[in-house]
């Protein structure tokens, strides 16, 4: 349970949701603030403009009509022409739905006040400028500042004022709406974020589940979803490719160890059996020596198998370096033939070298010697008794071809391709026991490949088998 919570808290899903919601909320607040500031500025500018327009209108009317305002008394009876002016002023005031404060004065006294300030004994401060816009504070009128526009002419001063709190009220209303809406938005964005992230991340759950299931035993399985064209599909495809690569190397290792075990099992069977029987009951001294000799042979055989396996493994993993140097082909082959001749004695076979050109070639003499020894060894092993193994060379221009030929049972065509396969001996279709040769030939192939050469096998129905290696001269 705790782990579940922990993994939930650290899940990308939660992170994405939180990020998404935070961003959403941040943008919402930012937008709110921008709108607030903008509206604040606009209403202020509008207010100033309105106040000015209104003041101007009043001043113009008052100025244009040259009648005596000094004697004006509110509530008095006027001449008809004056009444018209007052109607205009009145009109200006009445249609001022916003309830502005208006005060008209000449230098001596206030000659007009709107109703809303009639009862309040206050006077707006006088400014010297012809036109002034300023904030004015008076508790009697408003807790907030009052925006005042004052216009002066020679005779009159017109003051139009408006409490800022009314603008603030609008803006505050806007702010309140935002504050109220914000949590709703936050919840919506959280849910939305969770939905979107879970939808996109749900597929990752598939990867997690599948990768949990995949072990060394079921590497042929694939993570589903490679068909999606997005990053997810690409990730799945890359992971599947990785699984394939892992499978290839696991298969290689498995096959390698299986084949290693198989190679070693025959000598081990012999060692175990012979020793068990020798220990079961007393034997003659000759018999013990015989068993020890045989055990020794098997031990050597196992060492050879292990060496071969080691060589192949190293070569497969590109750990073998070749040191090419120039040698004289003829004398090089002659010395190998001299050394290998002895192996034919048991079956009364001879090793003959045909004409090999005395040309200089560049190769790794140690490795090629190992390859040729393996091939000659095989030729003796599979050659008929009392026949000869022939070594021949051919100059192919850029390449040199070395051929090893023996007389004996032919290798079936379908098997020729397989004999160089290091795992051939473990192959189910195998009926021909090659006695460690499978590895020997794999070693040959590895060595020739290192030299960028090729190995060929010809085994026709004429009881002749020829293995050739073609190597570049340098």
């Amino acid at each position, binding site marked *: 349970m705790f782990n579940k919570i922990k993994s939930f808290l650290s899940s990308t899903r939660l992170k994405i949701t939180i990020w998404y919601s935070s961003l959403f909320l941040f943008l919402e607040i930012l937008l709110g603030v921008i709108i607030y500031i903008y509206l604040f500025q606009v209403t202020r500018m509008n207010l100033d403009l309105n106040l000015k327009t209104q003041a101007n209108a009043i001043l113009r009317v008052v100025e244009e009509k040259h009648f005596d305002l000094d004697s004006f008394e509110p509530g008095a009876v006027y001449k008809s022409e004056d009444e018209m002016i007052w109607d205009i002023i009145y009109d200006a005031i009445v249609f001022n739905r916003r309830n502005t404060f208006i005060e008209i004065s000449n230098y001596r006294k206030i000659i007009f006040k709107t109703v809303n300030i009639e009862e309040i004994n206050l006077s707006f401060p006088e400014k010297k400028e012809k036109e002034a816009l300023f904030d004015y504070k008076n508790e009697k009128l408003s807790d907030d500042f009052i925006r005042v526009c004052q216009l002066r002419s020679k005779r009159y001063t017109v003051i139009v004022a408006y409490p800022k709190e009314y603008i603030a009220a609008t803006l505050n209303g806007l702010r309140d709406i935002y504050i109220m809406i914000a949590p709703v938005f936050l919840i919506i964005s959280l849910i939305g974020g969770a939905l979107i992230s879970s939808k996109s991340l749900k597929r990752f759950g598939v990867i997690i589940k599948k990768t949990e299931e995949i072990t060394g035993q079921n590497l042929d399985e694939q993570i589903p979803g490679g068909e999606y064209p997005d990053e997810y599909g690409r990730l799945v495809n890359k992971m599947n490719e990785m699984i394939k690569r892992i499978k290839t190397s696991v298969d290689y290792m498995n096959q390698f160890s299986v084949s290693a075990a198989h190679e070693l099992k025959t000598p081990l*069977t012999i060692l175990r*059996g012979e020793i*068990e*029987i020798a220990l079961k009951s007393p034997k003659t001294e000759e018999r013990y020596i015989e068993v020890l000799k045989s055990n020794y042979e098997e031990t050597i055989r196992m060492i050879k198998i292990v060496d071969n396996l080691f060589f192949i493994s190293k070569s497969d993993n590109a750990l073998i370096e070749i040191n090419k140097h120039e040698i004289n082909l003829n004398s090089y082959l002659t010395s190998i033939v001299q050394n290998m001749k002895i192996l034919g004695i048991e079956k009364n076979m001879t090793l003959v070298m045909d004409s090999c050109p005395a040309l200089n070639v560049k190769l790794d003499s140690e490795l090629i010697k190992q390859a040729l020894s393996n091939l000659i060894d095989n030729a003796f092993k599979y050659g008929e008794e009392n026949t000869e193994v022939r070594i021949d060379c051919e100059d192919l221009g850029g390449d040199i071809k070395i051929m090893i030929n023996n007389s004996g049972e032919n290798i079936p065509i379908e098997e020729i391709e397989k004999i160089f396969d290091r795992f051939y001996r473990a192959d189910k279709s195998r*009926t*021909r026991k090659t006695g460690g040769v499978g590895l020997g030939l794999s070693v040959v192939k590895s060595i020739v490949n290192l030299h960028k050469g090729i190995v060929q096998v010809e085994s026709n129905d004429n009881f002749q088998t020829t293995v050739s290696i073609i190597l570049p001269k340098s």
Partner: protein
Amino acid sequence: MRILVVEDEKKVASFIKKGLEEEFFQVDTASNGKEGYELAMKEEYDLIISDIMMPVMSGIQLVREIRKNEINTPILLLTIKNSTKDKVDGLDSGADDYLIKPFAFEELTARVRALLRRKEGKKDNILFVADLVMDLVAHKVTRDNIEIILTPKEYSILEFLMRHKNKIISRTKLIEHVYDFHFDTGTNVIDVYINKLRSKIDQSFEKQLIHTIRSVGYIIKE
């Protein structure tokens, strides 16, 4: 008891042969399935031990061919591969048992005894006729609780007779089962061994167990 060992790895065949001979079995060897098949058709074996991976004819093919010819000799397969499929293939082809190389020789002999027992419908490794008892594992023969020392050949002949007690066994059959195929069946060597056996088993006892059936062979009965 005569056993055919079919194995292409000469040394493996050789130690199996030596080991089984120490257990008083007569062993022939063949180096591939085809050779093994020819021998199995020609000679009469009590048991066949065969490798699976062999040139010319595999062990599995060998078993199939043998069974096709209605030869029901128990067959024990030796395999290098420890896979279920191989075991299943081997047993399904008609083999009776299998053993994975490298095996403990004692296990091989135990399985050989078990297969021979099963063939005869027996449950233990003791053969007896009246008070004559043969322990097939310890290779000990007693009569009236007195141990009788036998040579391997005498033991083999007695074993064969006791395995087929109350049945008349011809000289030819005895020779076939207690000698490997290099033996010349024309001699009367069996009679010599039977006489030796009689002197060891029956001489000091009142009740005679080994009887001669004139011009046919021998029988062991109470």
